[in-house]
């Protein structure tokens, strides 16, 4: 942290923060006189959106796949993550010859607004104060995230999306894209998500937020100004959330009730069990790469997500008249976004006679199954995208159709 923040100009500071968070991404900056209107009534300006691309845009710009990341994901979907040094979160899915085949498609993955990897978020500089926004950052929604992405596409001069794809919160963005920009979305793949956040999921998020806020280093959200970070609170939030991404079966298979580097329990509160040690590691690794306030704002955006509420309480109305082809995917062991919630989306799409496919993939990996190598998921996405490209008449760079 700079000892004397005032000595650094706003532009310098913004640049330093953006680059620090994100050494390898393209970033588009929208100036202060092009504010992004927000659902809350406010607006966001200036606005930065960081993104990664893979593959090549074809001549008629018809092979764009927009990949939307989940709550704690980022734009580094298929490249080494510059912060962790690990492969991108969807490295198994995106790449040459993979289901999201970068030899055929042009893949764009933006960091959501509210995030902390280069797009404008609570750790960005507030032009009004020249300090980080912190708690003064406006509350954003999933629709705001999507609106920002639409602006990014406009800036890049791309009107049509061959397919918008994402899991979990990424799936929420997919549904929002399909509901809000019907004419721009040829096909949509919402995975392991729902058309609204359930009470149970809001409850889990609230536990996470309270853990962050209970950390004295949160400083009412102004920890960046004070050179602090609510690491413990954020780690606890991550630990609790991480459990919801797994399944009982996964935890059992992975850990049983096995002890960590010891023969017997210690009758204390050390991490006796492997599962405790694992969760502590997950929490710790997370705080090194994620901003606590971003976690608060993005979880809030998910909580507010309710597409039906924006359409007189009738989900089908959100999709009335849609020409978009849908491929809805859920997982049998996902209890965070259970199949029933995907089925509600499918029923709404059926009610408007939309062209929809729906696959419930058999997996015991819980919600995180969408990030893992699940052959049924891979076959589904590969087949669906190929059919969409065929129906759209996409001509690929190699001349194939």
């Amino acid at each position, binding site marked *: 942290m700079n000892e004397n923040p005032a000595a650094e100009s706003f532009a310098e500071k913004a640049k330093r923060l953006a680059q620090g968070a994100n050494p390898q991404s393209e970033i588009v900056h929208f100036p202060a006189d092009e504010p992004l209107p927000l659902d809350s009534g406010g607006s966001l300006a200036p606005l930065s959106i960081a993104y990664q691309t893979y593959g090549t845009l074809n001549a008629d710009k018809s092979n764009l796949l927009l990949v939307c990341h989940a709550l704690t994901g980022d734009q580094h979907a298929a490249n080494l993550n510059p912060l962790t040094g690990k492969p991108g979160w969807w490295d198994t899915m995106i790449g040459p010859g993979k289901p999201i085949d970068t030899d055929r498609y042009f893949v764009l993955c933006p960091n959501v607004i509210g995030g902390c990897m280069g797009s404008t978020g609570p750790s960005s500089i507030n032009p009004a104060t020249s300090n980080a926004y912190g708690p003064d950052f406006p509350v954003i929604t999933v629709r705001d995230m999507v609106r920002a992405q639409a602006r990014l596409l406009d800036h890049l001069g791309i009107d049509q999306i061959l397919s918008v794809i994402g899991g979990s919160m990424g799936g929420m963005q997919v549904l929002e894209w399909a509901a809000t920009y019907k004419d721009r979305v040829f096909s949509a793949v919402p995975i392991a998500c729902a058309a609204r956040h359930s009470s149970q999921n809001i409850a889990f998020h609230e536990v996470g937020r309270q853990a962050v806020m209970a950390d004295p280093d949160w400083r009412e959200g102004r920890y960046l100004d004070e050179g602090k970070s609510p690491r413990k609170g954020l780690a606890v939030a991550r630990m609790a959330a991480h459990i919801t991404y797994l399944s009982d079966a996964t935890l059992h298979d992975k850990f049983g009730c096995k002890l960590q580097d010891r023969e017997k329990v210690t009758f204390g509160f050390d991490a006796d069990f492997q599962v405790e040690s694992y969760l502590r590691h997950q929490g710790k690794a997370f705080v090194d790469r994620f901003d606590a306030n971003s976690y608060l704002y993005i979880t809030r955006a998910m909580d507010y997500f309710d597409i039906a509420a924006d359409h007189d309480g009738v989900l089908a109305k959100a999709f009335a008249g849609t020409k978009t082809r849908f491929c*809805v995917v859920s997982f049998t062991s996902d209890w965070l976004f259970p199949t029933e919630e995907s089925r509600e989306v499918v*029923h709404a799409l*059926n009610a408007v*006679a939309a062209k929809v*496919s729906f*696959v419930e993939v058999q997996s015991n990996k819980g919600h995180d199954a969408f990030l893992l190598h699940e052959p049924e998921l891979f*076959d*589904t996405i590969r*087949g669906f995208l190929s059919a969409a490209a065929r129906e759209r008449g996409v001509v690929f760079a190699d001349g194939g159709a």
Partner: protein
Amino acid sequence: MSVNIPVKPNSVRAPDTQRVDLLLIAEMVVPGSRVLDVGCGDGTLLRILAEKQAVDGRGIELSHAGVSSCVAQGLAVIQGNADTDLAYYPDLAFDYAILSQTIQATHNPRLVLEQLLRIGKRAVVSFPNFGHWRVRTQLMFGGHMPRTDNLPESWHDTPNIHFCTIKDFLALCDDLGARVERAVALNAYGTKLVSMPLFAQNLFGEQAVFLLSR
């Protein structure tokens, strides 16, 4: 047909006879129409309909394997249940609602048929005829539940829980006020049994295909 996908072992459709019954169904469908195939299996009929009649096809299938295979081929198929999921479609959403070799596996065939006639301007239903002489003889002289090439499963592991004869099906149509626009019985070799009285069709027909409307 250019695509050849092996029929999954548990399918209620036997590979040989299915072609004829599916082709007959395809014949009944007007080109370019909107079609829902309920119980679409591995998507064979949807592919035939797309290739031969250029239909805008959708499917519903119960089995994971069937749905995955369909979606991987790019067919618009949802994992669902004929008994419960038809209720979500609006009235007359399709030109044809097809139930091919599936009605005998539903829990409530009457309700399913009602739904078909509601969401489709026309319904096409094909089923194995339990009045076929081979079935009758097995029960009469063998004293056991019939097993044929077409219906190979034992009584305890078959998905087919509501068998009917051609006569039974006609009675149900009558009951529901459905108009029979076409009815074709096929013998074991897939030949249409034409100009035969009903009792003979019910005896020699191994499959039956009905085109219905309200």
